[in-house]
């Protein structure tokens, strides 16, 4: 339980800036596509190597990056909008994952893979989470400025620096890495919630990017803490508990947030 809490808290801190930037870059759906994509990869890893952390991680990483890349490739080559190609790719990966698990025999619980079990975070998983979170926070700090400019005004960045594509690549890799390490603790589908919900909620609290990231991290940590408490005392599944708490915080932000929240809308906008 203590391990799950610590792992969840550091994960919430490292996914917060990723989620905020995903929303700013209008790539919110990528998280979902990657999370679904992880499933067949992790299932394959499980099939070949059993329930081992490296196998699940490598499989998930490869498949997650592959799905994100495939979606980007289809979009670029065909002119189909990215959300459509992503929406086409989720069910394929989900079905493939479930099928592989079926073929592999039912030794790995599907529900465990999809929704995780935070209470089963063991020492190696926790170490992995700490490493990934630390590394991704440092990497985000390093690419912060180019990533910010690349998001706001890629043409301008191109004229002053060649870091744009690099920052984008590092960013996507970090997203996949965090989702992969997170899915073992709170599940492939739930970790996206932990990444996106606090980020979406934070937009109702500030107009400044650094503040947004800090608020998202705080909301994420609060969700992990409250969610784990709830799941412990009422014996609820932990992944959904965490994400539902985050969802509750999001709804509260939508209603009460000072920046374009429903109750705080500036008079100019309500008169329309």
């Amino acid at each position: 339980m203590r391990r799950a809490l610590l792992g969840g808290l550091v994960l919430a801190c490292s996914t917060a800036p990723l989620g905020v930037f995903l929303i700013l870059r209008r790539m919110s759906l990528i998280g979902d596509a990657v999370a679904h994509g992880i499933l067949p990869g992790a299932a394959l890893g499980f099939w070949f190597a059993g329930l081992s952390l490296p196998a699940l991680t490598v499989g998930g990483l490869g498949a997650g990056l592959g799905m994100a890349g495939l979606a980007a490739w289809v979009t670029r080559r065909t002119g189909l909008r990215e959300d459509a190609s992503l929406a086409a790719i989720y069910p394929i990966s989900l079905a493939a994952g479930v099928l592989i698990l079926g073929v592999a025999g039912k030794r790995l619980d599907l529900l465990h893979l999809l929704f995780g079990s935070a209470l089963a975070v063991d020492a190696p998983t926790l170490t992995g989470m700490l490493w990934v979170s630390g590394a991704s926070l440092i990497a985000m700090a390093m690419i912060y400025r180019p990533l910010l400019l690349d998001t706001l005004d890629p043409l301008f960045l191109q004229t002053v620096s060649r870091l744009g594509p690099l920052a984008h690549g590092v960013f996507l890799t970090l997203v996949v890495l965090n989702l992969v390490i997170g899915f073992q603790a709170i599940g492939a589908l739930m970790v996206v919630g932990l990444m996106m919900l606090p980020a979406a909620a934070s937009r109702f609290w500030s107009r400044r990017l650094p503040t947004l990231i800090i608020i998202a991290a705080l909301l994420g940590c609060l969700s992990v803490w409250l969610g784990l408490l709830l799941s412990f005392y009422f014996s609820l599944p932990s992944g959904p508990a965490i994400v539902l708490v985050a969802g509750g915080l999001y709804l509260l932000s939508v209603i009460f947030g000072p920046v374009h929240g429903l109750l705080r809308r500036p008079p100019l906008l309500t008169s329309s």
Partner: protein
Amino acid sequence: MIHCQALRWGPSGQPLTPSLYLERPRGSLTAIIGANGSGKSSLLKVIGGLQKPLSGTVTLDVPRRGGVSFLPQQQHLDRQFPISLQELVVAGAWGDRHSPAMRNERLRTVLEDWALGGLEQRPLMALSGGELQRALLARLSLTDAPLLLLDEPHAALDEQGQALLWKHIQAWHAEGKTLVVVCHDLAAVRRYVSHTLVVNPSGCTFGRSHDLIAQQPCAGVA
């Protein structure tokens, strides 16, 4: 400074005009005019190396990075982006080697130059179109690039803002910078810019602005 050889460009694989040959010397000031969709903005991006030409080459006498500064059209910016005006402008100081004190001084000067004093902490979403345009121009002023490519710099500016813009364009020109300006304001082009390239699907024409633009351009010309 700018050498275009048999240049063809276009957004989707179809060249918009016949091949373009154009030479502009260092320190020149050139306007690009033409109808909507004729490919003015794309040409500017091709010159700046931000878009690949379909065929032909563009050579510049300055490095592509750091030597060229590009003013994008402001509708490409996300107005909801959670940063302040100052954070937008300060990006123009990317990669320069000034001391922090010097940087601050320069930042303050360009903010004053573009009449943006007092708006530093304003978030982007609270800026008017003209204020945002002046902020983009201020960022451009900070870059120190010898070649400036301006895509519709007069957009969203009121009369005062336009006067400020042309004053700066003339000052840059006097400093010896090379400028290419995409502009719909034909009267201003005729008045302030010596040479003009007219982009047209049937072929581009280059010449003196006075010869290419009629004395009193009516709305139909644009």
